[in-house]
């Protein structure tokens, strides 16, 4: 019998999971919605404006690049959208459009496409952009519109900023509950730890992220700042304050866990999580910058290749027992 059509030839296995890169990326976007909602509630339309702009910018820039790049880029796979949203969560809600544009350019080009696009980058694109902006526009990046329904242009410092410039005493009237639900100043995504946690739990359930990095990250920040708190509570803020403020939750659950830029092996991830926590705490306690999460994650991104190389997982049959 002549075969009148060509049969598919491909390597085993033919069966595939129903997961796909696109699905993962969009799911992560969706899990960010609770946190986005809190920030929209806090900062009003401005928050939505920032998110919309970064989303349009990142996806748009990637679409433009896909026209000139010599390799294939699927700009609708959700990864650049996610980068955009996460970038939005890392800037204050009154960030001007041109700053968002610069941030998006940095994230997509410097953070991602110069390395060859999705999956090839060493550093977390959104964080490269955030640190780039932080260092370039420290004024705009460290003063925040005061949260609440108020639409007036009052700006203030984040709790960590206050801590850095004015010391622990100034924090007396910031309650931890406020921190947890987001009644404080900050960039869009760092204000509500609880809302972030909701999304993160779903990601953990779906196994899109693993527990090692976020848990160890937060635990190490807690323990390290806790030690100093015990030494001198008048000079150092409490560990609970530290884990609830700034980007710790955002960073630990959504940014340090970026699979592209975190280690492949279990041991690697453990060290990565500890390192992120340690550097965050050190920078917060001793550095000039009020916030250390972004720097810590970027630094650890840099050592991921070494972790991958020197901390392989146990293979089947590594123990001799025969």
């Amino acid at each position, binding site marked *: 019998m002549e075969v009148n059509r*060509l*049969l*598919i*030839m*491909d*390597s085993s296995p033919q069966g595939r999971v129903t997961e796909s890169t696109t699905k993962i990326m969009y799911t992560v976007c969706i899990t960010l919605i609770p946190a986005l909602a809190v920030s929209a509630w806090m900062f009003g339309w401005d928050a939505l404006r920032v998110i919309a702009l970064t989303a349009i910018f990142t996806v748009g820039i990637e679409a433009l690049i896909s026209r000139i790049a010599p390799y294939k880029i699927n700009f609708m796979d959700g990864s650049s959208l996610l980068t955009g949203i996460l970038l939005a969560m890392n800037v204050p809600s009154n960030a001007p459009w041109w700053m968002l544009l610069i941030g998006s350019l940095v994230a997509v080009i410097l953070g991602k496409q110069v390395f060859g696009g999705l999956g090839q980058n060493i550093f977390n694109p959104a964080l490269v952009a955030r640190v780039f902006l932080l260092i370039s526009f420290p004024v705009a990046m460290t003063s925040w519109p005061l949260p609440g329904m108020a639409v007036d242009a009052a700006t203030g410092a984040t709790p960590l900023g206050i801590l850095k410039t004015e010391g622990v005493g100034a924090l007396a009237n910031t309650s931890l509950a406020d921190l947890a639900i987001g009644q404080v100043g900050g960039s869009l995504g760092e204000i509500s730890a609880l809302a972030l946690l909701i999304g993160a739990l779903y990601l953990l359930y779906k196994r899109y992220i693993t527990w090692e990095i976020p848990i160890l990250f937060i635990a190490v920040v807690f323990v390290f700042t806790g030690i100093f708190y015990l030494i001198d509570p008048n000079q150092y803020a409490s560990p609970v304050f530290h884990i609830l403020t700034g980007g710790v939750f955002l960073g630990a659950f959504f940014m340090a866990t970026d699979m592209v830029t975190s280690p492949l092996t279990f041991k690697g991830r453990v060290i990565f999580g500890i390192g992120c926590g340690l550097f965050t705490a050190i920078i917060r306690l001793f550095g000039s910058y009020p916030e250390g999460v972004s720097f810590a994650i970027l630094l650890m991104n840099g050592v991921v290749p070494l972790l991958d190389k020197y901390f392989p997982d146990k293979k089947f049959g590594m123990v001799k027992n025969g």
Partner: protein
Amino acid sequence: MPELIIPALILGGFALISSTGLLIASKKFYVYEDPRIEEVNELLPGANCGGCGFAGCSAYAENAVNTMSLDTICPVADSETMEAIGKALGLEVKVGEKQVASLMCKGTTQNCKPVMDYRGIQDCWAMMLVGDSNKACSFTCLGLGSCVLACNFDAMRIEDGIVVIDDEKCVGCGNCIPACPKDLLHLRPVSKIVTVSCFNTDKGADARKACAVACIGCMKCEKVCESDAIHVTNFLAKIDYEKCTLCNKCVEACPTNAIEIRGIEAHE
């Protein structure tokens, strides 16, 4: 005057100490080295920039002498320097006619029918893991370009499912030959443009069925050749380039056009 002399004496003193120290050390701790390493090292620019990928000029020199090859070029040196180094090591450009790679297959998708819809990794070796051949002839060029990847001179490209070689660009390095899982590439002198473009050793009928331009082993070429340059073994003709006079008789005689004239434009 002393304000000129004192510094001069001090610096001179430093120079004296360090040069004597080095001289003595180099005598006392002398270690034999291939003198040519030093010679090549002398010729090198000495920028010690590490740009060549070796840790400094002497490492480069050592490697060049030990392996007797100048595959990596010093980025700082100009071409004269490289030539001088070549001369010092007696590494000269091989004389003789330029060789080029040549494909023993004409199985384009028109000549040789595809038999599968291959969707795996686009690489000839990888495809061989899934099936022996993607066209009717089991000897055919798979056209997935493992050889193209191996070529550092941009001399190969895929056209109509087979690889095409640019005689001008090909330098005859032979890198592509072991890259082909089907053993379809060989080197021939660039002027010997009459080649058998087939590698099928199946019996005539089977070969014909598989591919329109297969060598069917009919022996016609062997008979017409006046220089004893072409022979058929295993149902496949093979040309001895040393003997071939480019008379084209075999080309005319071949019933399936398996023998062809390559790169005519380049030669006229």
